[in-house]
């Protein structure tokens, strides 16, 4: 596979804060590559370095063989970037935004109008071409930015949290567009996300935490790595339960809000065995096949988003109350 992004030992410090601590990876042509991690893990910093907006403190990054630090101009011509927050001029129309982009990226004059029409059709916005973008919804703005990313046919398209803040329907539509982009133009996609289900769309994922890559593989292989089911138990006395699990079954558990969770093979059978043999006092218990969330949990000991864990426990509490 031909590598279009090659990163070696890349690091970025802001004063004393190490945002990125020596990461390395490579991305092949036409690949959809995802950076998965919680907010503040170093995802946006990495993308800004790759897009030439930030200078790395040390290490090297090459795009299509060009060093981002020493030839930013050549790199910029080959990439497209869709930022986390909309970067449109909202007092211009959709068409005017795209035209400005076409001129900036030196799209041949004769091809501009054609490409703009084509790109607007691609994201289903051609009927709004003459409208000011300030009248657009969040999802429409995001789609317009994707259209803009297509205008100069970049070899690599960077997307920083492409679907954050979008409703599920728009997220699904955005992903259709992104997959079509790879299919029709062979574009390499590099994206960051903190949504597990979004990461599932990637060919390969680098799990990043505290500025370091803690795992890099396909989503399936990452899940396989966990292998076991995730059991989450709600308990008023989690320490006692933790001791029981480790002494009798040799299972290491992770405390979570209001209880604990642990990984075990054949979780459903294990629960039955645990409840009949040991009769622990539990407020609720659940078992789930491994997801990328669990991959993250097993790699870092934390859940990617704390509110996700709370939501789960709220559900468990409700179940416990109904049964009690």
């Amino acid at each position: 596979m031909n590598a279009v992004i090659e990163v070696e030992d890349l690091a970025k410090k802001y004063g004393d804060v190490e945002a990125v601590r020596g990461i390395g990876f490579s991305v092949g042509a036409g690949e959809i590559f995802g950076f998965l991690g919680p907010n503040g893990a170093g995802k946006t910093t990495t993308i800004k370095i790759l897009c030439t907006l930030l200078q790395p403190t040390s290490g090297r990054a090459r795009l299509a063989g060009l060093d981002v630090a020493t030839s930013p101009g050549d790199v910029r011509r080959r990439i497209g970037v869709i930022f986390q927050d909309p970067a449109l001029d909202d007092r211009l129309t959709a068409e005017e935004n795209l035209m400005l982009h076409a001129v900036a990226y030196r799209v041949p004059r004769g091809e501009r109008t054609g490409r703009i029409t084509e790109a607007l059709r691609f994201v289903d916005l051609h009927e709004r071409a003459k409208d000011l973008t300030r009248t657009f919804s969040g999802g429409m703005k995001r789609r317009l930015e994707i259209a803009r990313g297509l205008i100069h046919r970049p070899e690599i398209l960077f997307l920083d949290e492409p679907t954050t803040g979008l409703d599920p329907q728009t997220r699904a539509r955005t992903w259709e567009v992104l997959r079509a982009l790879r299919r029709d133009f062979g574009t390499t996609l590099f994206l960051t996300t903190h949504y597990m289900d979004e990461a599932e769309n990637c060919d390969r994922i680098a799990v990043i935490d505290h500025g370091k890559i803690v795992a890099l593989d396909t989503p399936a292989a990452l899940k396989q790595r966990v292998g076991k089911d995730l059991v989450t138990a709600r308990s008023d006395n989690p320490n006692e339960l933790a001791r029981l699990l480790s002494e009798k079954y040799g299972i290491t558990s992770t405390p979570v809000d209001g209880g604990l969770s642990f990984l075990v093979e054949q979780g459903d059978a294990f629960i039955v065995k645990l409840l009949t043999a040991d009769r622990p006092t539990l407020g609720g218990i659940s078992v789930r096949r491994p997801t990328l969330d669990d991959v993250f949990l097993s790699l870092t000991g934390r859940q990617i988003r704390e509110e996700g864990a709370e939501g789960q426990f709220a559900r468990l509490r409700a179940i416990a109350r109904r049964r009690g």
Partner: protein
Amino acid sequence: MIEVIYALWRRDMVKFLRDRRNLITSMVRPFLWLVAFGFGLRASVKLPEAGAGTDFVSFLVPGMAAMTVLFASMFAAISIVWEREFGFLKELLVAPIPRGAIVAAKLAAGSATATVEAGLMLALAPLIGARFSVTGALLSLPLLAVFGMSVNALGIVVAARMKSFEGFGSVVNFIIQPIFFLSGALYPIDGLPRVLRIVVLINPMSYAVDAVRGLCIGPHHFPIALDVAVVLAAGLAFGALARRAFNKMEV
């Protein structure tokens, strides 16, 4: 390259022309000065020999033209803060455009919009009885445009360091008031106290006002060639500073 600068310049012009209300409200400040200050003091002000016979309201017109450019051009730089806040600046910085081209387009647009406002102000001034040379006014416009460029550049230097609209507003107000009041826009600069005179002499706006007054009304304090030279030099110097500030800016 030229095409990119033109496209970026055109973007700001399109937005300026779409917002007509802005153009109308920009006339309030100069006409308030002309009417309230001009007519208010006309009877009590005796202009020095060189300007004797000139009506005080007409005397104020060149200063008001320069003031219009000063305020419009300075506040046009807020677009940098605005575009950083709303993300568009990132789109520009990641595009294969030299940063110098972005600055050049900004300066050209900031100066053009300000000059349009000054031109409109000059066109309307005769309605309240101001009298001045039309040829002189037309000749003044390119000079005002260069002055506008240097002011816009100063605005960009401030905007490049500011993270908020409020921050930009307060810093700009802090520098814009002395530039305006100590420029001779409101009074002749002959016979000023020594300290005040020194401040007026180092203020580039004094030379812009002086040249426009010379061209439109007749009396002027410095040679017009010196006025033009100072305005051009200020444009180049502030332009270079703006470019440097923009280069160092992070998003």
